[in-house]
């Protein structure tokens, strides 16, 4: 909502909502990053204040509106070591401020829900103790844990007696907090001791592990995004290496032969363009073509590769699958193109194919010297006859139009199975 808004003039630099790490709007995460403590500390403080006549909710919404949004990646990560050492003191500081505000609210507001706030505060302290990131050792284990998900989160807690003591103390405080809450509401009396302790344990477990699991999920998602991104990058790099870089190297080696260099460049251009812009045209080399468009592109590639310096311009309107009739048309087109390359005396041949109403029409045209169909020599006559008979075998037609000085055009027609609507 406020991604484009300018930050308020009075705000300290670096204080912003952290939408990457945030749960709701990133206010707590942002404030925590600015102070340099774990977001959990600020979150617990906010929840406790929220229970105290809604002060926390008001503060949260005000901060939401005032603070500019910012992604975690936009600012440099705080220096890990100094922050770690200070984190405990700062957490204590946040706790003291929260406590002070609680007393303030209690003094100023007549309806202060004691029964809700104090158990919450005790339970929050418990959660904080259990989940606080103690030091670099535990930090490493966190990383190890996220690295080999799915695993048992508890295994990461085999951290030595200090961590165990911390967690036990936290859990005890949590149970006390919940118990106090339930007792003050008279729930204890009706439930019985065992029921209450089971309930408290389950609730405590959920509170302890919930944020942890949520955080693991976030980290897992981020990792997956990162992996997809790097795979795409690797794909791109592989393609550029296989095709573009190879071609550039070849062009340098053939720098003294302009025809060779031009032909290489052209072939690469066609392939790269197909790769960038057109999904239906697989770049050359990836198996046999399955559509008319792909087959004609392949034809142009191959003829240009065999006959250095020739340009075969292909324009296709519509497309259809490569059934036997269409394949015959492609082969006949190829003969016509090769014929034009050999005899026209020009370096350009254009191929135009159009698929309309269950029919493929193709035209192979050059602007070369042309010939008089009545007086052609054996070779050219044979080729045009082989084109005509090839098309006839598949129920198609072929015609050759030419006159001396007018260029040559071969037109081919065959029926095709229409393309499935995409």
């Amino acid at each position, binding site marked *: 909502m406020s991604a484009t808004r300018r930050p308020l003039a009075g705000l300290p630099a670096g204080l912003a909502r952290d939408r990457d790490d945030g749960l709701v709007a990133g206010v707590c995460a942002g404030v925590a990053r600015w102070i340099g403590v774990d977001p959990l500390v600020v979150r617990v403080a906010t929840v406790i204040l929220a229970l105290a006549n809604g002060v926390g909710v008001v503060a949260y919404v005000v901060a939401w509106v005032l603070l500019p949004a910012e992604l975690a990646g936009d600012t440099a990560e705080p220096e890990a070591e100094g922050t770690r050492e200070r984190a405990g003191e700062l957490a204590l500081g946040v706790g003291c401020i929260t406590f002070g505000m609680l007393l303030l609210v209690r003094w100023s507001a007549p309806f202060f829900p004691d029964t809700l706030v104090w158990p919450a505060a005790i339970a929050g302290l418990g959660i904080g103790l259990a989940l606080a990131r103690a030091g670099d050792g535990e930090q490493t284990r966190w990383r190890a844990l996220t690295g080999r998900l799915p695993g048992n989160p508890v295994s990461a807690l085999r951290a030595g007696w200090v961590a165990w003591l911390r967690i036990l103390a936290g859990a005890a405080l949590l149970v006390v907090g919940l118990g106090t809450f339930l007792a003050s509401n008279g729930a204890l009396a009706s439930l019985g001791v065992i029921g209450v302790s089971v309930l408290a344990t389950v609730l405590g477990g959920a509170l302890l592990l919930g944020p942890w699991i949520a955080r693991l999920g976030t980290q897992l998602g981020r990792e997956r995004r990162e992996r997809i991104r790097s795979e795409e990058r690797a794909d791109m790099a592989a393609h550029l290496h296989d095709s573009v870089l190879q071609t550039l190297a070849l062009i340098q080696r053939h720098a003294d032969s302009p025809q060779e260099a031009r032909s290489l460049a*052209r072939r690469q251009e066609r392939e790269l363009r197909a790769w*960038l812009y057109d999904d239906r045209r697989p770049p050359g080399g990836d198996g046999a073509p399955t559509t008319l468009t792909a087959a004609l592109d392949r034809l142009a590639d191959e003829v240009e590769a065999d006959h250095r310096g020739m340009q075969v311009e292909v*324009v296709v*309107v519509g497309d259809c699958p490569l059934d036997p009739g269409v394949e015959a048309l492609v082969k006949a087109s190829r003969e016509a193109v090769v014929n034009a390359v050999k005899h026209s005396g020009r370096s350009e041949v*254009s191929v135009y194919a159009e698929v*309309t109403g269950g029919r493929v029409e193709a035209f192979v045209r050059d602007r070369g010297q042309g010939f008089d169909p009545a007086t052609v020599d054996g070779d050219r006559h044979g080729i045009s006859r082989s084109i005509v008979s090839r098309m006839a075998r598949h129920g198609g037609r072929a015609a050759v139009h030419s006159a001396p000085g007018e260029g040559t055009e071969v037109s081919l027609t065959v029926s095709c199975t229409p393309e499935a609507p995409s």
Partner: protein
Amino acid sequence: MTRVFLVDDHRLFLSGVRAELAGRAEIVGEATDVESAVEGIRRTGPDVVLLDVHLPGGGGRAVIETVRPTHPDVVFLALSVSDAAEDVIAVIRAGARGYVTKTIGADDLADAVERVRDGDAVFSPRLAGFVLDAFAGDLPAGAALDPELDQITPREREVLRLLARGYTYKEIARRLEVSIKTIETHVSSVLRKLQLSSRHELTRWATDRRLI
């Protein structure tokens, strides 16, 4: 001599075009991005702008849309290696008078510049193919489309197909036994339809690219 302004973000290509057009057109300026192109065109007031489809800062389309309201008499000819139909069609719809690929020869390019300056449309075989694709098929029944704009006439289709087959205007005119002027009229009419039509293919192209 035609006063030409070049816009392309590849300096190597700019110098190539400059060398090719030397003696056939007067190059009044060059630019490599949208902002400097708009500023340069407004300052020099060229006859024809040779415009790359892909440009940093919004593409050739942004240049046309910014300059046209203040300088309606400047003519644009799109020049690109891009084969993506939607990019090319977008620039044409923004107001370019034609599209040629960068592999075009020097003579053909000089000829194309003069033809757009004289008010004609310049269709390369590839653009003709794109347009045939765009206007392919019958209009959906009951669609609120304007048949004047959303369908090309059989004669126009014939001209486009011959263009796609690699024929020049002169050859088409001889083949269809009409004057070159008639062919130019047909092509201009197709260009107008391409720019104004609301056929769903065009609209879809545009919305896919968030152009509307």
